[in-house]
Structures are given as C-alpha cells and as structure tokens.
C-alpha cells in the first residue's frame, strides 16, 4: 500500500517537474544570433466568429514573408504569432506578451475595431516599438488621439463607402433610399460614409436600425417607405442573409445597394430566394473578387498556391497583406536598421507609397492613416458562381472623405443619431 502511494506521489512530482521544465524551456529563449534577427510579432483572431478570416490573414502574411525568404537587410525575420478572440483586453494581453516577453520590434495586427483602439492606446505608451494595423477598421484608431507608434495602411469603414453615395444619386439617379443597418459601431461608420456623399448630392435617406443578431425583419420590411428608389443594406453575415431572404420572400423588388461586408462568402454561397436580388447588387469596399489589375491577378495567383487557400482571398487577408507590405518595404529601405528607437524605420513607414495587392495606390496621411482607392463592385454570376466584380474605383480617398479634417471632426463620431446626412445647402 505504502509503495503504491509513494509511487503515485512520485509520478505526480515527476509530472510537475516535467511541466515546469517544459514551461521554463519554452519561456526562456533568449535569442543570441551572430546577426540579431528582426523580431516581428502579429496578432489576429484564430478563435471565435472571425477565425477563418484570421487564418487567412496569416496565410497571406506567410506568403509575403516567404517571398522575402524571411530575411531583410541581411537580418533574419523571426515571426511570433499570437491569437486573440476579437476582444480588446485579450488583444492587449497578447501585444504586451509580444513586446515585453518576446521582445518583438514590430507588431502587425489586430483584426477588429475595439482591439485596434486598445492597441493604439498601448502603442502610445511605448518607445522604440511600432504597431502596424492588421485589418481593424474603426475610424478612431487613427482619427482621434492618434498614436505616433501606430500605422494603418488599410482604409477604414467610413472610407469604404466612398463613391457609393454619388453613384446611387447620380449614375443610378435614385433620389430617395432607405438604409437598413445593424445598430452597432461598424454599420454606423459605413452609413455615415454613405450618407455624407448621398445627402450632399441631394438625396433623401430613411433609416431603419436593428440590433446585431436580429432574425425577424418582417415588421421592418413593412416599414420601408413606398417612395424609396433603392435599399441600402448594411448588415454583415447572418443578419444580412436573414434580411435579404425575408425581403425576397415578401416580394421585394427594389435595387439593392450593399455595405462593404454584405457581399462576402456567407451571402454568396448560401442558397435561397435572396439570390434573385443579390445578382447585380452594387457595393463598395477596399477589394473585390475580380479586379482588372495586374497586381491583383498576380497576388491572387500566388495566394491560390498557398495550402488550404480559399478561391479568392478574404478582406482580412488583403488588409493584413497591405499592412505587411508597408512594413517590408520600409524595412528594406532602412536595410533592416531599427536602431535609434526605430526613428529611421518609422520615418520610412510614414513616407511609404506603394501599390496594395489590389492595385490601389497607398500612402499615409499625417495621422499615419491610409489614403487609398475604394472599389465600386457589382455581383455577377461567373461560371455559375456569384462573384464581386470591381467596375469603378474612387481614387485616393482620405479618412475624412474629402471634407476638411476640422469640419469632419466637428460632425462628431458616427452613431444612429449622427448619420452624416447633412444636406447640401
């Protein structure tokens, strides 16, 4: 009896020892190389609802780093990947671990809006470290209280609507629309971008808001005014699908204008009556499945060679790739030199001008926020599968959509009561 017991406790002790050893082995990894590597950290979302987008982001990051053979300026790039769950606190904990424990020089990330704002604030407390956005698109990450250590080479949710308001008012010649949108931050930003242009061009807008996760839109569909000439649907994922299905079943026939995340694969691959309305849907955003641009064709061809790649890269993959491209180019310019608190590197980052994978020209404004092209897209059936096809681009859209910054800031943050619909007078 006593033998069995001591054996058991010995086993426990050994297990604990092994665990400690494994843990310390993993933690204590002081990198001593002849030529110190550039330590690149990244944060994306590998768990929760955005997990596939996060995986796709790492797929393209790996692709771009492989193309450089993980070496810039004779220095090896050591890449540490971390995962958040789209919550600000978790992204912050991961970024802290990367900067303070793993001692990375640069972080690329995160994926979602609140995380971006949290990391922007964190970056302001650092010296000699740089955070470059991944795919997050909240305006305030760079518009209000910007941090000198935070750079964003992708456009934000408001910018993504550039050109759409004018297209609906002038080209489609629709004088009144009804916006049906989710009642949270991202749709607010998108509706703001749309309304700003559309109302300025003399259009009239009715708004119908519904909380995230709404499944029954019947009463809302009944409220759509008869005078509307088109529907602007700014929902994402399953909300958009539920609305479109019910609208189609109710016999709705208005032309559909979509927000930037309406035309994603959730909507396009789902079967149902909504498909009748989806084909021909016009939307705008930073990318499309089909863009007539050699840069994009080349990027997609390389992307498709990656293991488990989707038929077309996701929006997160494109945004992470755009941001990483900025980092790689700046690192090359300074020949991998991150000395002097990264002063030269950050200057090079801020001065970057390059073509994003989509072929859009990217440069940064004084808040280190991207000025770039936005695509107008239409859904077309190609070979039996619906795809978003870019047919026009709004060139060099800045964060305030051409409004002077003080005037834009004076409009206040987008919300359901601040839709950006200020009629031209």
């Amino acid at each position, binding site marked *: 009896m*006593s033998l069995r*017991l*001591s054996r*058991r*406790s010995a086993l*426990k002790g050994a297990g604990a020892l092994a665990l400690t050893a*494994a*843990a310390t082995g*993993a*933690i*204590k990894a*002081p990198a001593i190389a002849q030529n110190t590597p550039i330590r690149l950290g990244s944060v994306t979302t*590998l*768990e929760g609802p955005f997990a596939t987008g996060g*995986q796709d982001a790492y797929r393209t990051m790996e692709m771009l780093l492989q193309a450089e053979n993980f070496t810039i300026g004779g220095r090896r790039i050591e890449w540490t*990947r*971390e*995962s958040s*769950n*789209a*919550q*600000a*606190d*978790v992204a*912050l*904990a991961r970024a*802290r*671990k990367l900067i*303070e*424990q793993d*001692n990375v020089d640069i972080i690329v990330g995160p994926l979602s*809006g*609140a995380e971006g*704002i*949290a990391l922007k*604030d*964190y970056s302001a*407390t650092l010296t000699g470290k740089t955070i470059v956005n991944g795919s997050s698109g*909240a305006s*305030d990450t760079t518009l*209000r*209280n910007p941090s000198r250590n935070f750079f964003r080479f992708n456009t934000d949710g408001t910018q993504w609507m550039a050109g759409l308001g004018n297209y609906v008012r002038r080209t489609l010649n629709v004088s009144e629309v009804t916006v049906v949108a989710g*009642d*949270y*931050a991202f749709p607010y930003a998108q509706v703001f971008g749309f309304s700003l242009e559309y109302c300025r061009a003399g259009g009239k807008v009715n708004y119908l808001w519904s*909380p995230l996760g709404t499944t029954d839109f019947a009463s809302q569909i009944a409220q759509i005014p008869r005078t509307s000439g088109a529907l602007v649907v700014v929902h994402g994922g399953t909300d958009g699908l539920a609305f479109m299905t019910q609208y189609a079943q109710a016999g709705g026939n208005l032309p559909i204008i979509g927000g930037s995340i309406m035309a994603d694969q959730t909507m396009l691959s789902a079967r149902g009556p909504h498909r009748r309305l989806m084909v021909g849907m016009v939307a705008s955003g930073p990318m499309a499945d089909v863009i007539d641009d050699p840069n994009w064709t080349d990027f997609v061809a390389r992307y498709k060679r990656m293991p488990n790649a989707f038929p077309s890269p996701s929006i997160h993959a494109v945004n992470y790739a755009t941001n990483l491209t900025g980092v790689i180019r700046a690192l090359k310019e300074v020949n991998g030199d991150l000395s002097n608190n990264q002063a030269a590197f950050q200057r090079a980052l801020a001065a970057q001008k390059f073509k994003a994978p989509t072929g859009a020209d990217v440069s940064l404004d004084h808040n280190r926020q991207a000025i770039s092209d936005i695509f107008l897209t239409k859904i077309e059936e190609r070979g039996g599968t619906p795809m978003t096809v870019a047919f026009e681009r709004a060139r060099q859209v800045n964060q305030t959509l051409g409004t002077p910054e003080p005037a834009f800031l004076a409009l206040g*943050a987008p*919300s*359901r009561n601040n839709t950006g619909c200020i009629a031209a007078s």
Partner: protein
Amino acid sequence: MSAWLRTPVGMASAATLALLLLLPAILPELMPQNQARFWLANIFGRAIIYGIIAMSLIFLATYGGLVSLAQMSLAGVAGYVVAITIDGAAPSIVGGLSYATAIPLGIAAATLAALFVGLVSVRTRDIYLLMITLALAMGFFRFVETNLAWFNGYEGIRNVLGPSVFGLPFRDPHVLYYVSLTVAVLLYAGVLYLVRSPFGLVLQGIRDNPRRVAALGYNVALHRIAAFGVAGFIAGCGGVLATIYNIGISPGSIGLGATVNVLIMSVIGGLGHPIGAFIGSLIFAFFDTFAASIYDRNRFNTLIGIVFLVIVLLSPDGVIGLAKRVGALMRRD
C-alpha cells in the same frame, strides 16, 4: 498574532507574503530585465488583480454557498464608473473627476449594484442563482455594448492611465504590482477577519442550514444581501485595478468569456479558501499567456482546456484540495 505565526498556516502565509514582497528583486535574477518587468506586471500583477475579482466569488461561494456569475459585471460597474468620470479618458463621457474621487465612487457603485443583485436573487439558490446572476451579467453586457451615450458601445472607453502613486506613474510595473499586492493583502485579511466575525459565522450558518438560522432569529435574506454587498466591494476594487491595468474598459472585458474565466480561476484554484482565487488566477494567467508558445499556435486553447480538466479531475476542489490531499498522503506514508 505571534501565536498564529507559529502555526504551519501562519508560517506559510508569512513566507508567501515575504516572497511576494521580494519578487521584484528576485525576478531579474532569473531572467532578462525586460522579461522580469513583463512577469511582474503581466503575470503576477494580472494574477493578483483578477485574483481579487475571483476572491469575491470565492467569498460568496465558500462562506455563503452562493455561486454568483455576476462578479465580473460588478467589477465592470466599478471600472466603467471610473472610466466615465475621470479626467482624460477617451472619449470623455462625464470627465472632470480626479482618481481620488472617481475610484471610491466606482467602488461604491459596484457595492450598490451588488446589493441590487443580492436583492434580485435573494430567494434563489444553486443552479437558479447561477442562472439569474448570469442573466443579469449578460443583460448588463448587452446594455453596455449597445449604449453609446454613456458607455461608448462596442469600442468602450480607453486611455484610463491610472493615478500617480507617491509621484510615480501607475504604468510602472513596480507601482502596479505593489499597489495591487497591497489591495489584495488588505482584502484577503479583511475576508479572513470577516468570516470569523459574528456576521461571517451567521453567513456560514445560513449556508449550512438557513431554516435553523432563521429560527434563531436572524434575518436570512438581509445577511445574504449584505454578503453580496461585501463581495461587490471586493469585485469593485478588482474592477478598478483591472480597468487601469487594461488602460480602459470595453464590453469584451465583462462579456461571457470574462465572466466564465473568473469562475474557471476560482474552480481550478479551489472554492474552499480565499487563497484559491489567487492560485487559480496565477495558473490561468500563466497558461493564457504562454499556451501558444508551449503548444501549437492554432490549437492552444486545447492545452488550456486539458490543464484545467486535469486539475479538476485530479481534484474536484482545485489546487488547494490537491495540496491538502498530497499533505494527507505524506502523513500516511
């Protein structure tokens, strides 16, 4: 006091406290300087801060038999009140207050909110109490997430940098660590004192047999509500520290994930003694931070799950229970 110090528990407590006080000096001996600062603030500091919130749950569960899932929300109440009222937060909702005023206000708000939670759930027990507190927590979470005017919705309120303590910035890892440690030690001692006081004894009586305690003439409902208030005070202290540690607060800080994490910390540490909260919180902070380095990056949640499963399987009463069991085995050998 000196007699207590000579008991094994007393000696162990004193040794642990000494170790924790000397930790900022010990860590740099074990690892490079920057990693030592990381461990101090983001492993031990974080463990202490979330340990305080977990302790509020353990206090309720162990001495009142009340397993509440609302503790993280109550911490959030304190955090949000501070974020809303202090000067310099972004966006500024009310602003204008100094930390010296905002922090007591936040803790008072958490205590009041906790009394309300107690009032609502006073007639329920066990699984029903769990459900009703979960419902309140999720209700508060959704409210905060959709309300823009007061809570800035999904994006939350950032830039809560914390006060300076004796002229030193709160963001310094040493300041963060020592302030958290001081608060934790005071609350821990307070809990141990309270459970020996007449109030604590009545509370434990209620846990074991509410009818008998009622027959003795005590007001059972009032004691339960008061216990919630005490736990809310503790959670509020933790919530203020967590908000400053996270440089702000957003709905994700009080969502379902965060709520369940507090329960996980308490269970792996061990419902049974307040120290379990801090042990559980330390294990949680360690694995939450390093699981991705130890194990496959895409699957690191599996490792966290397995560790917690193993602890709970080996010892249903957490690490404390494990320690007790090993101690008992040693004596039998």
